[in-house]
């Protein structure tokens, strides 16, 4: 038997070890760097580019064309009635940025832009939308946003509540494009353990305020706002003496009563906690002492409007779910449309996202879209497609005429909306990368994205479940953006991880560098004046790499990055 010298054995071992380290490193950083061809916009491998740009097999079902035309007619008619002019359609890059912000919470990557540029311009928006709808980032991002509507942001009682499981369940719902009405029914009628049946957490999220059992008051308030688009919380304590809550309609208004709220709450008293079996259905068991009454009243389960749609028989929560999802309960469909609209635009169609009074004027688009939503099987993706294709969504945010708040209120221009903290974090992280940051990215990149986002959002100020408040900017936010560690790491030279270095290494010339940074950060090309200015900055700098870092810092610190437009 041949005996190898010790030195050779040691070398062999160390070689294996080095190879292992190299392979591990390669695995961890795989996918970090875009090819030079993509960066320069030359598609040498059109098949590879097309892998992300080919339209997904069309699963739209019936065409959305006629529905979109109706929505556009409503939009045009409303503007004409108001005597308002409207802006021209925005360019495809702007619309695609809006779609990305709405569906995955950040702007487009340079990789996505270059891929879209390979196909016919008229198809780019639709292709991008279809890609996003299939993207796991969309499923998870919307799951988080909907979790905030449905259960809020509080941790609740760990012993009976798993918000993360609930969110993952919602991600699966969006990935499968489950019918909205089915999702609502599952939430309202959920039974079992919160660990085994994640949808049960909709109920158990309220355990912390009711001694370890479902809190009917909170569930009634949540249900009315999320699924009915009505704020009737004040009826918990008193009748509506201020005229704020009407539960009739425009023709026959009816003042909201305390009974309306508590009869709705009564449905949830049937959700009993049954030891290891978790939440089980029981009977309605609710009494309440109304204002000015001497004694408590046994409260029967009832609905605040359209009582004829409530099934007479069945388990209490199942009856409620059937009523909420009844095709003739258009108000409930309006509530769903209102939330999806707000997620798409970053602001509600009317004054608030979760209060659509039964007796007040709402934009005609709302009813048109809601009826279309019901008529086409509560299909969430179709709803998104209809909104995304509407002129209201595609119109520019700037115009030749002077824009007033009236124009924004009526969607004559796309409204300027401040991004949420996680959208800002997502946008700056994506802007600092050439490739799309998603679940196919390397482990290192995903880890950095997750921790960076969490730390940034904590510092920036999480707005909790106040989803659509356009809060004012704070000193903390500006300090974080100008001097914070995340920005510094993303801007400073880092040959593996960021745009600054990639552009510095691979750009053909200064003009191309400026163009690339603008596309990465703003998802648009620089204007001639901007290009001239920053090309001059780079050319006149002793260190062009630092000048590019400065440009990245400037764009990441701008209003344009921090606002949806």
């Amino acid at each position: 038997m041949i005996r190898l010298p010790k030195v050779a054995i040691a070398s062999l071992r160390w070689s294996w070890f080095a190879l292992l380290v190299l392979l591990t490193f390669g695995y961890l950083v795989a996918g970090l760097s875009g090819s030079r061809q993509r960066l320069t916009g030359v598609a040498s491998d059109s098949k590879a580019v097309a892998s992300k740009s080919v339209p997904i097999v069309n699963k739209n079902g019936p065409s959305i064309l006629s529905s979109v035309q109706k929505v556009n007619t409503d939009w045009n008619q409303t503007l004409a009635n108001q005597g308002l002019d409207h802006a021209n359609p925005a360019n495809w890059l702007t619309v695609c940025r809006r779609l990305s912000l709405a569906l995955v919470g950040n702007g487009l990557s340079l990789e996505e832009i270059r891929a879209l540029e390979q196909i016919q311009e008229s198809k780019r928006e639709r292709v991008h939308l279809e890609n996003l709808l299939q993207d796991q980032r969309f499923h998870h991002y919307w799951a988080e946003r909907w979790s905030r509507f449905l259960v809020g942001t509080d941790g609740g009682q760990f012993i009976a509540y798993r918000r993360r499981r609930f969110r993952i369940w919602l991600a699966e719902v969006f990935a499968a494009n489950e019918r909205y009405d089915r999702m609502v029914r599952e939430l309202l009628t959920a039974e079992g353990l919160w660990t085994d049946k994640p949808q049960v957490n909709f109920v158990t999220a309220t355990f912390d305020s009711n001694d370890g059992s479902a809190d009917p008051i909170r569930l009634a308030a949540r249900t009315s706002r999320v699924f009915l688009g009505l704020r009737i919380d004040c009826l918990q304590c008193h009748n509506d003496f201020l005229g704020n809550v009407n539960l009739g309609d425009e023709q026959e208004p009816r003042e909201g009563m305390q009974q309306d709220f508590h009869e709705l709450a009564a449905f949830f008293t049937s959700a009993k906690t049954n030891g290891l079996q978790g939440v089980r259905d029981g009977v309605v068991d609710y009494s309440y002492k109304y204002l000015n009454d001497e004694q408590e009243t046994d409260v029967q389960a009832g609905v605040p409007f359209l009582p004829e749609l409530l099934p007479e028989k069945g388990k209490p929560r199942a009856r409620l779910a059937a009523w909420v999802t009844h095709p003739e309960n258009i108000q409930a469909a309006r509530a769903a449309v209102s939330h999806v609209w707000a997620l798409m635009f970053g602001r509600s169609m009317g004054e608030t996202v979760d209060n659509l009074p039964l007796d007040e004027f709402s934009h005609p688009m709302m009813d048109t879209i809601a009826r279309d939503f019901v008529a086409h099987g509560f299909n969430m993706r179709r709803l998104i497609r209809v909104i995304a294709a509407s002129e209201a969504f595609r119109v520019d945010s700037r115009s030749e005429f002077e824009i007033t708040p009236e124009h924004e209120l009526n969607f004559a221009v796309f409204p300027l909306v401040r991004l949420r903290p996680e959208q800002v974090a997502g946008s700056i992280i994506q802007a600092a990368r050439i490739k799309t940051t998603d679940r196919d990215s390397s482990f290192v990149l995903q880890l950095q994205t997750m921790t960076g986002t969490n730390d940034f959002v904590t510092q920036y100020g999480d707005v909790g479940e106040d989803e659509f408040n356009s809060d004012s900017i704070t000193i903390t936010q500006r300090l974080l953006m100008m001097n914070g560690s995340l920005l510094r790491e993303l801007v400073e030279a880092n040959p593996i991880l960021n745009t600054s270095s990639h552009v510095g290494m691979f750009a053909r010339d200064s003009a191309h560098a400026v163009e690339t940074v603008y596309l990465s950060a703003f998802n648009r090309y620089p204007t001639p004046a901007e290009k001239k200015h920053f090309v001059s900055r780079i050319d006149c700098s002793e260190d062009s790499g630092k000048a590019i870092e400065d440009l990245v810092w400037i764009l990441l610190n701008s209003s344009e990055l921090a606002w949806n437009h």
Partner: protein
Amino acid sequence: MSLQEQSNQSQFCDRRTHLSRRTLLGAGGGGILMSSIARRLAWADEQGVTDPARPKSVILLWLGGGPSQLETFDPHPGGVYGGDTSAIPTSVNGLQISDLLPQTAEQMHLTSLVRSVTSKEGDHERAVYNIKTGYRPDPTLKHPSVGAVLCHADQAGADIPRHISIVPNGSPGRGGYLGAAYDAFKIYDPAQPVPDIRRSVPESRFDQRVADLFDVVESEFQRGRLRHLESKRTLHQTATDAALRMMSSQQLDAFDVSSESKEVRDSFGDSAFGRGALAASRLVEVGARCVEVTLGGWDSHITNHSLQSSACGKLDPALSALLRRLEERDLLDSTLVICGGEFGRTPRINPAEGRDHWPHGFSALFAGCGIRRGGIHGATAAKPTLDPENPMADITDAVSVGDLHATILSALGVDYEEELETPIGRPMKRCEGKPIEAILDV
């Protein structure tokens, strides 16, 4: 002016500021040489001197996790529920507190003690919200914490933020419906520099970046968009100006406790909380309206006495030194010190030698700003019945969380009953409750 507009504008500047800045801009307009950075610096210089007539301030020493009243300000030694804690006399005749707070005992003549606070929230998250805002959690509305309410009620300016949370531990004061502009500015152990305050590149390069940002990029963004985009909507330059002012402000020194003598620093204790309390006393001197300093470690479901002792070891030097310092520097009349947590702990000691959550009778300490010196209000029974159907039976002169807030606002001279309007037009009182007259000097 709507609440949102008020919120947007007031945090950063007032009309005089805008006027003088425009004047500067006008002056600069004649000569293109005056860059936007120069204009901002000139404006910052003009704002450099703080009005000496500063409003009253609050320092909230927040004891996160639920301090045990029995191991702090309301001991009942010797009884079945007294545990291992003894009571010691204080500088107030007849008042005894826990032997875990010997230094604080010597300063009790400066304070009023409320021993009968009750709430309906026994869960940490909800109770913190309840105590900090004065309202129970409400899915329809996020209420502002007391610091935000005070900053909103008085808009006097300072270079540094006026609502500050030191070592916030996840529950800093929030602006709620008043807006994020009223959120507390968060800093951590004052031994470390204020976060994000230092430029990461040389000053000249930083200035060039800022100049390009506004002169090239922001001006392009405004083109063809909403009229008065900056002043009516984004406030991007306004907020940046405020951040730049803070970065170059001498008031920043107030965060830096290292400039204090070793003797002073030692008196507050060698802990982040102690340094935070010292920083708080410096910050109110330069115009901060509300500074909260958090001390965690009070959630003693097991080995209660050990955990409470450890936390008291940090609280005692910091609280006593803070009271002493404010008194010595003649600041106690204009600074309200509050010390307490989200709830107390059960009289009954559990099998793990711990105490659990107890919102039915716990303590809060007040001092300064018109609070009666040596006052005591309310009591819990030494031998409580612990009747679950009637927990109030063990409490004398119970006060609600709303009462605490009314007391705070009243001491600060803020109309506690005034109604504010939420962004959706809902009228909302600053707080629910009545001031505790027994601890207020008439």
